[in-house]
């Protein structure tokens, strides 16, 4: 095409080219592992699918625009030409097209967003199991009450409760049964915290003065890492916890053990938790 001044141009293009390619490479190599964990609850799986669709759209938009950019700056570099290019001031048709396409994408993605949002935000049924989560500076207290342990286990009218507490590096463990819908009732009396379980792909804030709750149905047993995701003071970084999802009969045994153990079970529980590490 243009033969003159190529060396100098190449050097400049190389600067952008290499850096552009580096970021492109980072983007695409990351793509394979562009790693949101798959999610271990019904809700998380829906959200993960939405994520994958969004990622695909994002990748297309990114590659199209970045590709066009790189193509244009290589194709239309000046070299030694001194002629003026045609003075194009714009084009209404083109403007309409590039308003229209994003609008279409956005509407489609928004529709899908609302569908997933509705399932995720569905909430719990009357007799679903629930756990009370109290956040404080800098730890967690998970309280189970016997009249709220789901249709099979609940002892209506019972006011028996047990809790698991842990703070700082002695992070507590929350235990729930697999394949059962569990509601988390989040509460804080000091500052705002946020209950974040990575593999649930979900977090919800604990706001003083608010009654925030959400429900999930875990589908895979295992131990999952949780964090406080809202800056809450000096030891915010240490406000970690784990969630252990177990088979249902294992959960029943655990409940019995906790009920029998009373206070001891509480401290016993935190002992086991500190032994458990990430999955």
């Amino acid at each position, binding site marked *: 095409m243009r033969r003159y001044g190529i060396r100098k141009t190449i050097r400049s293009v190389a600067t952008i080219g290499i850096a552009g390619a580096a970021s492109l490479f980072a983007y695409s190599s990351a793509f394979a592992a562009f790693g949101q964990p798959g999610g271990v609850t019904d809700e998380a799986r829906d959200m993960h699918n939405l994520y994958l669709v969004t990622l695909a759209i994002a990748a297309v938009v990114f590659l199209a625009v970045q590709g066009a950019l790189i193509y244009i700056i290589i194709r239309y570099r000046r070299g030694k030409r001194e002629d003026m290019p045609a003075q194009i*001031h714009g084009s209404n048709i083109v403007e309409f097209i590039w308003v229209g396409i*994003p609008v279409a994408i956005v509407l489609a993605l928004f529709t899908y967003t609302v569908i997933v949002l509705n399932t995720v935000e569905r909430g719990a049924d009357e007799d679903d199991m629930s756990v009370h989560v109290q956040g404080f500076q800098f730890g967690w207290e998970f309280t189970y009450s016997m009249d709220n342990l789901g249709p099979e286990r609940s002892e209506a009218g019972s006011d028996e409760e047990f809790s698991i507490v842990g703070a700082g590096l002695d992070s507590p463990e929350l235990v729930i049964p697999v394949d059962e819908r569990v509601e988390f009732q989040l509460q804080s009396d000091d500052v705002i915290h946020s209950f974040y379980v990575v593999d649930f792909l979900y977090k919800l804030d604990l706001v003083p003065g608010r009654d925030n709750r959400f429900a999930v149905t875990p589908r895979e047993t295992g131990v999952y890492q949780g964090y406080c995701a809202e800056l809450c003071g000096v030891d915010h970084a240490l406000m970690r916890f784990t969630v252990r999802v177990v088979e249902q009969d294992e959960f029943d045994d655990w409940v019995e053990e906790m009920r029998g153990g009373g206070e001891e079970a509480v401290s016993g529980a935190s002992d086991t938790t500190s032994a458990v590490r990430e999955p």
Partner: protein
Amino acid sequence: MATVAAPGTQAYARPALLDWLTTVDHKKLGILYLYFTMFFFAVGGILALLVRTQLAVADSSFVSNNAYNQIFTMHASAMLFLFIIPVWAGFGNYLVPLQIGAADMAFPRINALSFWLLPPAGILMFAGFLVEGGSANAGWTAYSPLAQQSGSGMDLWIISVIILGVSSTIGAANFMVTMFRMRAPGMTMFRMPIFCWTMLVTAVLQLLATPVLAAALTMLFIDRNFGGAFFDPNTGGNAILWQNIFWFYSHPAVYIMILPGMGIISEIIPVFSRKPLFGYKAFVFATMAIGGLGFSVWAHHMFTTGAVLLPFFSFMTFLIGVPTGVKIFNWLGTMWRGSITFTTPMLFGIGFVSMFLIGGINGMFSAVVPIDFAIHDTYFVVAHIHYVLFGGSVMAVFGGFYYWFPKIWGRKLNETLGKWHFGLMLIGFNLAFFPMHLLGLDGMPRRIATYSESGWEALNFASTVGSFLIGVSMIPFLIAVVAAFMRPKDQPDDPWEANTLEWGTTSPPPVYNFDELPEVRSERPLFDRRHPDLAGGGH
């Protein structure tokens, strides 16, 4: 018409320092703004390097948890309130009167006041490090009730930000009046340079949003010092109220932080593509649309509070991508079939388009509410912040620097050093911030002083290396600046063959800017003068 001669500047001897301290000349004030803000860029950058040093490895104890909270809070506060927001006022001060063919801003003394409010505010904010309990440490977002617990450094921070708000509000009114009233003959609104348009929309946002922040800060101050109950649910207040009011300001504020940058890029790209900006009017309307929509999306920062209307704010946030897309496409359209030279300003322009694109797209991930449930308050958001603010705004700052340096200081920055600066910065930047996406998806919360997960170490280490590389990239820049100042002022009026009025006067311009104004018949008066044959077709 302006007829005052430039050489008269030295006619009466006033000590140079006093002259700078008492000046009401928009150009000098603009330069003062640029010095001030670049200083705080360095300060904020050094704080960032402390953050990165702490996070380089797991379970690090380079700084204490408490110190860490102060450091990242002050990093963001310096970068946002003392660097990126006022830096646009700096460019605007220098350029807006020149670009519209005026002698000065509408209110030169108020202009001086806008600037002189900054140094005390900067000192107050950083004085926090000296008081008991340390500086502000609740993040730049100062969420209540946490912000109630901080020491008196937080009060200093509040006062400082209020002062900065006053500065930016009166500055905004000044810019608006200047652009409405002081344009040269022939310069209709739709012939104003795009940079002026973006400054105008920014000024509207500042005028309407900043006072709301002042109200929020006032309430926080009352709660902290006079037993107020605004944000305390136990006495009838509302903990979420702070977030609503804060983000009502701070979302528009992120456009305050980017729009003038987009304006700068829109000056640079046409010049070095030798074509007019593709779709000038579409660009102006897109800027207005972003400004307008910007007021209706604030709660996308609050999706996980359980207290906002999710679908509404999600939808409005989605919509903002459309006018932003128009701009990106217009830049591409400008370069398309152009005649592109890769000068340093242009490299930063292209870098902006490329990197801001990534930042914008990952912002869209957060607009998808169920995805935000996962990535909110993780490093994914930190990646977003820096791709838009560094990959966008900071790129534009440097692009503008290289582009207008010959005009402002009469000398040119060395091109080779500039290319090293750009290249190192681009690589360092991507190395520093790209891994944060992955960390965030993998669940690393933001604002944590330390972590124990060994799986996060490699990516964090890479990020730290990248951030130091950004620091290294500043060396060629600084050398270029020093070298330039050691050379004589040898730049012609219009070294780049540019389009807008500021290139029609000497470099640097005389005190009253223009000895003679070129005729304005389109948004590219200088182009028209250079190429009478090609003139017209504009607005």
